[in-house]
């Protein structure tokens, strides 16, 4: 008997043990391969009716045909424009309001009853009203997207601002900072990284409302194209629309992450 430790056999499942990057990549790719294999077999072996569930390659062909024949890029552009404009407007209101509500309890006490009430009203329930007010044009879509995200955005930003550590504010006070200076040099820079994360998350929600807005009384945009495809039973085009929305969501998320890293380089070693 010697005292050398016997190496334990490595096991597949270990609690919270990090795995090599290559293994992580291989696993990530294989889940997609399995997904497409299952999809393909479902069509080939006729587990499903291929009229309602075309195979993956037909979806890609559908996307190609949309892009080439139906000027799909214009609709994609319109959808992105609606998202960008409505989200910019929402941030323009929510960021300053959230910062003031999180900083000063008196401002919170005034606005919060209104904000919390609106948060529980489902934005789509306003569609009939918005249609009467704004008609079927862009105004109605942008208004829906705006009220869909603004209340949550205000609340999340307020909470992040509230969680700025009191000692940071007090440090600035004992260094001679007045309220405006503290807001500008402590509260805003301290909460900005979290505010950006909140914006990224709410942007994803914005895409949800976009589809709802473009399915009802719309002639342009990704959602409208999908509804038109349904009328002609072009299931592959509906799926192509879903694919594009998913890809755009990923792209925006990626861009926001890059922006986050660019704006807050001092958080680099803090992996989230």
């Amino acid at each position, binding site marked *: 008997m010697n005292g050398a430790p016997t190496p334990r056999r490595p096991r597949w499942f270990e609690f919270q043990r990090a795995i090599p990057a290559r293994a992580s990549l291989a696993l990530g790719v294989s889940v997609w391969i399995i997904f497409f294999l299952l999809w393909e077999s479902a069509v080939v072996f006729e587990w499903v009716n291929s009229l309602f569930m075309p195979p993956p390659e037909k979806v890609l062909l559908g996307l190609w045909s949309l892009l080439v024949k139906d000027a799909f890029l214009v609709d994609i552009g319109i959808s992105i424009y609606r998202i960008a404009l409505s989200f910019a407007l929402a941030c323009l209101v929510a960021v300053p309001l959230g910062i003031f509500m999180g900083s000063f309890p008196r401002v919170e006490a005034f606005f919060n009853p209104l904000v919390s009430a609106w948060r529980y009203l489902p934005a789509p329930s306003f569609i009939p009203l918005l249609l009467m007010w704004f008609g079927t044009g862009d105004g109605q879509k942008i208004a829906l997207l705006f009220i869909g995200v603004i209340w949550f955005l205000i609340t999340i930003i307020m909470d992040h601002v509230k969680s700025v550590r009191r000692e940071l504010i007090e*440090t600035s006070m004992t*260094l*001679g900072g007045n309220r405006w200076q503290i807001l500008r*040099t402590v509260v805003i820079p*301290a909460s900005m990284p979290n505010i950006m994360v909140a914006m990224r998350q709410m942007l994803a929600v914005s895409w949800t409302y976009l589809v709802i807005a473009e399915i009802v009384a719309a002639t342009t945009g990704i959602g409208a194209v999908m509804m038109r495809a349904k009328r002609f039973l072009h299931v592959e085009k509906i799926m192509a629309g879903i694919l594009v929305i998913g890809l755009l969501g990923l792209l925006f998320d990626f861009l926001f992450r890059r922006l986050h890293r660019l704006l807050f380089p*001092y958080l680099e070693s803090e992996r989230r």
Partner: protein
Amino acid sequence: MSAAPRETKLSVHGLSKDFRLGSGETIQAVADISFDVRDNELCALLGPSGCGKSTVLRMVAGLEEPGAGSLMLDGKAIAGPGRERGMVFQSYTSFDWLTVQENVEYGMRLNGVPRAERRDRARHFIDLVSLGAFRHAFPIELSGGMKQRVAIARTLANEPAILLMDEPFGALDAETRWTMQELLIDILESTDTTVLMVTHDIEEAIFLADRIVFMTRHPGRIRKILTTDFKGGRRVADKEAVVGLPEYGALERHIMHMMREESPSREHHAAEG
């Protein structure tokens, strides 16, 4: 340094403060606190936890309103926080989005010190706390002790009339704490700074302070004001040398005895003994 009489810098007289509890009843946090801090002196507020020493310091800083009593700095009444009473906290307060250099310049920027002067003075104090090599580092890359050095440099570079410290080394490990205590003595010797420091660490109080205000609790009152005359009016930046003196041991035992008498389990121990 000679033991010449020094002028009073900070004067605390008859200071009291009540806190309202959630249940609606009020408790007296501190009662009738009176003491002076003289020019260039390091005064420590020492006592068991819950004796209200931090509350006294926060009132001096202007971060809390006194219930009663008067607070005077250089003969002027204290009203609200201000740059002449810079505070170093126990928790790390470096601004993560600023480099070490920018952190130390921060207070001067608030007070409109011209850019060139700001930069030079910040450099001087960064060197003083031996962080020259980390001038352009962000706080996230620094250890706890280094973050506290940034906080000290940032406060001193702003030229406060008195430096307030609330358990500044309380979050550090023993070795770093010791180094930081010695560093603080060195810094104070070269900058002529008056300090009011809160601590619950007897050793730290005796080693650093010229005078120790010992507080009791419920409500917080001053029990005794002790001096560390045995150091001969000098500050020795060598902790081993100070701790080795026989007078050090005597003073430490005396304070430990008082601390034990303040302990809530005193009756319990007495019954057992």
